[in-house]
């Protein structure tokens, strides 16, 4: 027997997913222990081991993959309860973090608070030392000033110092020397250099990524060191791997070199889960994870998750490559309301788990999306969360009536249907933002709807977008901790090298790429991957000369680049530019800024158990009164129990399919098929008078 374990620490629960060799899953929720997050991990492992008829040592000794995702660092940022830290920067530029990108959002809101920096100004200290872009040392490093700064840091009791100088991504010498001096002066204080965290042009993002790393470093190091000790003491046979925001995982030393990578990393496991579940349907997927307060959307094209380097956590940019998870405030707890101009709105305010939807009867009085689903008959009040929570449908009705129906002059059912349509429109907007708005046609994709509420909205979302196939995983509630058990190891490397393609120095480019690839390969081999498990992906940030923003395009080939490869690169840039921005300038060369190598070590794919063959004839367990979107009326609708649906069994809408952690609603013409042990595939009926939803046409030149 061997196991793969995913452990995801959240604010309330620590989720465990244990996958056996056979592919069978064991899921466990342990109460989190925020004062010492590792304790819940150890407690949960004991509970899981017991269920597997073994003990912790027996479990860990046979664990081939142990991936851990943690919100410890993210919560520190949200609660701003981290240690006091210092920033050593270039003289004259101590306000880089304060000035940000100079942009005030919400133009018409005169009462918006400025986001607070992670380092107070008196501990942001500038010191002499300057390079110009060509590498000439314009001013020597001020070593005396660094020692004086260290004295101030010491007095303030800083636990970590970020060192971020201008131009250090090309010329890191000053940062390195400054770090040396600081370590001498401040024993026991963590010192992190920006060139090690994010060696890219643009000082705000680089400084921010470094400051965030410093901010979380002391606690993360303490926590991961202790956890490693506990797990190794328990006999863990494989190295502890940590989930990163780039969608892959990494060993502890790698995380401690760039702690920024673990921020907001939980949702980054979604693409791995989506590909595992729905990979047999295709590798163009849009994953949608709908929880209580938010909806996380991610585009996966050709088996690869869309990446972004513009993600901010608590208003601070992280700069590093991140799985581009687009979040909006739309979930089961989102509140429906009527504004001063009589428009129906849903969210962004959420009732969350407390006071919760009105039907929970624990204090919430406003109508939520969950209440609307109860009113429409989609959620069975007696069978919510497997019967663990009885829902009060009368309270749902009262709330929908009072806050939406009466003000708008709608019946209870019309008002509830309205709440669903509006929240669906918000969700469609979020899906369009990651697809249509980036020149990607969502109709080529399969929608993967996870989260407890995903199945309720799945078919309608797909229909609105012109998407034909929807996959709903059976265990929709533990999407991300499951994803961690099937994720790859991933290390991102980047080097700044400025080149224009009409006068490109191929030797310099090849040397730059080769250096990153050699280091990446050596690292993965050292971690035990074999050559054929290693994939290296090359990319470059490129723009037309004179443009300001870049787009990231793939760099072709696996060997040395030749002129033909550069032509291919230029061609794909023009193509991307046209798709995203509706124009291009094909007579121009391309300016390249950062060369990137993503090194991926693929683990062995876990087995997927087949579902048992079901009865030939599928029978509903009963019928219920539920809303039909086709007629706009409440009608008799059959409910099916998922346990009776064997492999290949099909159900046609209108119908409701109930599973322990999710409910699927099918409308007129939708057909659901039990795909395998993991979930359902829905073939969605097209919308009446369906419109094309994405076209990328060239603008005449």
């Amino acid at each position, binding site marked *: 027997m061997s196991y793969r374990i995913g452990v995801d620490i959240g604010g309330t629960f620590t989720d465990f997913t244990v996958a056996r060799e056979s592919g069978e899953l064991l899921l466990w929720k342990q109460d989190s222990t925020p004062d010492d997050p590792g304790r819940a991990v150890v407690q949960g492992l004991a509970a899981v081991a017991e269920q597997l008829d073994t003990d912790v040592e027996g479990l860990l000794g046979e664990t081939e993959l142990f991936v851990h995702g943690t919100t410890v660092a993210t919560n520190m940022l949200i609660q701003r309860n981290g240690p006091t830290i210092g920033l050593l920067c270039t*003289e004259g*530029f101590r306000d880089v973090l304060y000035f940000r990108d100079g*942009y*005030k959002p919400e133009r018409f809101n005169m009462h918006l608070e400025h986001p607070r920096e992670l380092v107070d100004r008196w501990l942001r200290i500038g010191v002499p030392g300057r390079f110009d872009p060509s590498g000439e040392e314009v001013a020597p490093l001020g070593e005396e000033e660094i020692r004086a700064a260290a004295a101030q840091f010491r007095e303030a009791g800083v636990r970590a110092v970020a060192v971020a100088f201008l131009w250090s991504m090309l010329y890191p010498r000053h940062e390195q020397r400054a770090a040396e001096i600081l370590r001498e002066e401040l024993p026991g204080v963590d010192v992190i250099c920006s060139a090690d965290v994010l060696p890219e*042009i643009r000082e705000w993002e680089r400084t921010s990524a470094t400051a965030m790393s410093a901010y979380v470093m002391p606690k993360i190091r303490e926590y991961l060191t202790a956890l490693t000790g506990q797990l190794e003491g328990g006999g863990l046979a494989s190295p502890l791997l940590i989930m990163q925001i780039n969608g892959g995982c990494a060993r502890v030393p790698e995380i401690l070199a760039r702690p920024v990578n673990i921020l907001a990393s939980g949702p980054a496991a979604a693409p791995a889960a989506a590909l595992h579940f729905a990979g047999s349907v295709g590798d163009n997927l849009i994953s949608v994870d709908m929880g209580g307060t938010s909806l996380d959307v991610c585009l996966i094209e050709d088996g690869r998750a869309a990446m972004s380097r513009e993600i901010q956590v608590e208003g601070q940019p992280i700069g590093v490559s991140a799985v581009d998870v687009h979040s909006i405030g739309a979930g089961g707890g989102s509140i429906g309301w009527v504004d001063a101009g009589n428009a129906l709105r849903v969210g962004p305010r959420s009732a969350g788990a407390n006071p919760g939807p009105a039907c929970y009867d624990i204090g919430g009085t406003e109508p939520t999306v969950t209440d609307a689903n109860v009113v429409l008959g989609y959620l069975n009040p007696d069978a919510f969360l497997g019967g663990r929570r009885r829902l009060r449908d009368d309270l749902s009705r009262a709330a929908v009536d009072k806050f939406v129906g009466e003000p*708008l002059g709608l019946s209870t059912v019309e008002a509830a249907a309205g709440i669903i*349509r509006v929240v669906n*429109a918000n969700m469609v907007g979020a899906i369009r933002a990651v697809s249509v708005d980036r020149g990607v046609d969502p109709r080529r994709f399969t929608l993967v709807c996870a989260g407890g509420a995903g199945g309720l909205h799945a078919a309608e979302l797909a229909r609105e977008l012109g998407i034909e196939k929807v996959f709903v995983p059976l265990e929709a509630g533990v999407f991300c901790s499951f994803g961690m058990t099937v994720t790859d190891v991933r290390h991102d490397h980047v080097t700044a090298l400025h080149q224009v393609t009409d006068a490109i120095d191929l030797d310099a480019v090849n040397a730059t790429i080769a250096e990153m690839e050699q280091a990446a390969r050596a690292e993965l081999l050292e971690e035990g991957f074999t050559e054929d498990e290693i994939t290296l992906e090359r990319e470059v940030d490129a723009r037309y000369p004179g443009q*300001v923003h870049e787009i990231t395009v793939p760099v072709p080939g696996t060997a040395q680049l030749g002129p033909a490869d550069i032509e291919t690169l230029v061609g794909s840039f023009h193509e991307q530019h046209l798709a995203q921005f509706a124009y291009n300038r094909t007579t121009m060369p391309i300016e390249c800024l950062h060369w990137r190598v993503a090194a991926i070590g693929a683990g062995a794919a876990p087995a997927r158990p087949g579902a048992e063959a079901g009865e030939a004839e599928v029978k509903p367990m009963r019928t219920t009164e539920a809303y039909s979107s086709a007629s706009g009326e409440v009608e008799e609708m059959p409910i099916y129990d998922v346990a009776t649906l064997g492999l290949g069994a099909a159900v046609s809408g209108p119908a409701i399919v109930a599973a322990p952690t999710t409910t699927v609603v099918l409308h007129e013409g939708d057909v659901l098929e039990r795909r395998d042990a993991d979930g359902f595939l829905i073939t969605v009926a097209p919308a009446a008078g369906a*419109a094309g939803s994405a076209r990328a046409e060239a603008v005449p030149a």
Partner: protein
Amino acid sequence: MEPTQTMTNPTAAEAAGGAYDPITFSVILSRFDAIVEEMTRVLEKSAWTSILALAHDYSCAIYDAVPRQVSMYDALPIHTASLHIAVREIAEAFEGEINPGDVFLFNDPYSGNTHVGDFVTAAPVFSDGRLVFWSVTKGHQMDTGAYIPSSVVASAADIYQEGITIPPMKMVEGGELRQDFFRLLLANLRYADLIEGDLRAQIGSIEKARQRIEELCEAYGTDVVLRYVDEIIDYSGRRAGQEIASMPDGRYEAEGWIDSDGFGHEHIRVQVAVEIEGERVKVDYAGSDPQAKGGANGSYATSQAAGAVPFLYYIDADIPHNHGVIDHVDVSAEEGTVCYAKFPASTSVATIVPSDLMQDVVNRAMVEAMPERVPAGGARCGNIPQFAGNGADGHSPWGFMLFNNAGAGGAAKGNDGWPLWYNQAALGGMKIQPIEQLELLYPVRIERCEIDTDSVGFGQWLGGPGNVCAVRPLVDEMVTITFGDAASNPPHGAMGGGQGSGGGQYVEDEATGRRRFVSSSGAFKVDHTHEFYVGVSTGGGGWGNPYERDAEQVRIDVRDGIVSREAAAAVFGVVLSADADPAIDAEATAAKRAELAKAPSPVVTPTEPNASPWLKDQMRDGDTYELDPLL
């Protein structure tokens, strides 16, 4: 000047079709906003010059056929509050010749545009064979072929000196770019390659919106969409009306001063009277000074917008900004004044000077009547210099606008002001260039960019801080052109708060240490062999009495170098120890605060022109000052 006409939409009125469905309403409303948001992103991410790609000096919007504004999402209100006038001008000029695939270009401020620097590109959107919408962008170009390398030439003596004036022109006809016209245009512009990129990005942006609107009409039916456009405009109008009705009726007056006209005439007065009656607002600039000799004049479009913009931020920020909101405010000004100039006067800087002050006098007038809604004064476009040179070889022209040194925003009740407000036209919604990107792309070194201590307007809530920015040219003589305001007449403080610092700019000679100070507008050169440029931008105005600011917050302000120890004691009444992390002397603080509370403070300050002490405080023996220098 006539108030804007009330308009009706005959197309939509005929297109009733079905009962009103509040849900379809919400869906279509958010769809229009999403389309404009996508236009905005396309333009930002694919533009070429930093003015568009970072500074966001552009606007995207959708108009119906009337034309009424349907959505502007996050556009610049000074651009869009009057953009329907430009769209109407295009529609009338080409009546009967507007076809699918056409794109029009237009920049003439004497027939409805804001100023020559703003290029309007507009594409008609057809559905079911009818022209139903306009997809529109307005982008501020880096060059317009003026007599000096700038598209905001404060010293232009008439509109001809601003460069090329473009009446409504068909730039793309039935999907084909009109090469002859495009070549003529580009031949008149510096940095033609970059500006070609910017224009293509504008066309890309309106093309995206055209596709999306067509999809929307296809999905819901054209008549249904048009019907809900009426509802969307009514909805905003209804909500804006409620908000204005909640403002106290009355007549409110104020005045303020523009630093100069670019030709040495200083302290130009702008006068406003605001009348609120029920759901309607009248903003009248009668009594303002005669029009300026240089470019500091309002056009019809900017004057209409400037008077209305403050009401966009007085009302709930959640109300969609469309025609229904703008329609509640009537703006008037006398022709021949600095607020509304007569042809052929230059209006080269109309969107900021005098428009920024025209907004701020409304804020001055209204703050006492509704202190919760009205902020203190913000930067009025000081310290955004345009730098240019010809390269080490004399034949490689370069140029850029520096946004990093821009002045700050005013405080409001309950929160401190933001830095980098840029101007009242932008309200903080522009972006700065990374220092490293500036140094990579242009032959300059940025030697400093940091908060200027005590630049904030003091108050219970502080104005945002100004900053000090030093720029050294590296290879050739650097032409520096500035256009701005609010140095000698700084942002005002409100409800007992103090004024911003004003700030200024100078060129320092390294050999002698002597400095040439220059007024907020001017054109001059910086010698790369021994000189460097320093801009010191203004802080925003403060809000509320400084002695009522939380003492612990004042302690942090001093610790962090935003406020000096001396100012903390003298103005805030907070007495601190000399430590790097200072302690409050509670007894001395209580005594000092009690004493300060006895002196009455004005509702709005300053009340006189030329109120900034900055220049006098900075000038040393041997330094010089130049007012509105010309090259």
